[in-house]
């Protein structure tokens, strides 16, 4: 089984990289980009039967830093 984990900076945490990407889009002439938030996607190839609770634990312990990041798990 496979799972995909989306990790994003929490709302309210400044995302300087997102801000730089937004600025660069503006410089390319793309108007109307109100905000850009940059995160990461982590794909996991897991033993069948791995529970969502276990994946959440992986996120809490390593994949996300919950001080600054939020995460979302998608089972594929």
């Amino acid at each position, binding site marked *: 089984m496979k799972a995909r984990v989306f990790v994003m*900076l929490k709302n309210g*945490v*400044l995302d*300087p*990289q997102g801000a*730089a990407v937004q600025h660069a889009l503006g410089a390319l002439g793309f108007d109307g980009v109100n905000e850009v938030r940059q995160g990461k996607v982590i794909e996991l190839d897991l033993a069948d039967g791995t529970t969502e609770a276990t994946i959440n634990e992986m996120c809490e*312990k*390593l*994949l996300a*830093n919950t*001080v*600054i990041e939020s995460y979302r798990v998608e089972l594929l």
Partner: protein
Amino acid sequence: MKAAVLQFPGSNCDRDMYMALKNAGADVTMVWHKEADLPAGVDVIGVPGGFSYGDYLRCGAIAANSPITKALKAHVERGGYAFGICNGFQVLTEARLLPGALLRNAGLKYICRTVDLSVETTDSPYTSAYTQGQHIGIPIAHHDGNFTADEDTLDMLEGEGRVAFRYVNNPNGSKRDIAGIVSENRRVLGMMPHPERAAEPAHGNEDGKHFFTSLIDAVVSA
């Protein structure tokens, strides 16, 4: 006074930290990250700067889960002294031994230069040889030194006098100009600037030397 300096793959300030501790009078041992135990009788653990594990995932995240880090956590839980410089600070926050986190610098650039710090408290084993409000010049060299925490945590750190150093001119966007903090029992310190790079005459600046002499004095007299 026995000190240990942890070495992770990608650590590159480990030998500077070793020399600064040794010159201040400590008996220093280097400890590889795969070790599960610290040398017997270690008083202080230093977590050096560098790029542990290539900064993969997040700076310090993999090192925070290394075998030796379990021993570091146990040492801190026993009330032991530990400090992290630069990547070492990132490791200590990732290991939840200090609050907050270090984000990408607000200006997105890697910054390498000497900056002025203000000593915000002398009530710590690391800062007792400085004077309150003293300005010291200490090198920084980081891409992810933008300290952040939620407002409640920042208020708590300030209320408990746990901000050890502040930037005089904030180079990286850190909340409330914070450059270094201490733990609740004041024995764990994390900071982005490098006092070990300003600790002997050949460095051209010895403002960081008192960081290590404070520490040795505190441990010897404890």
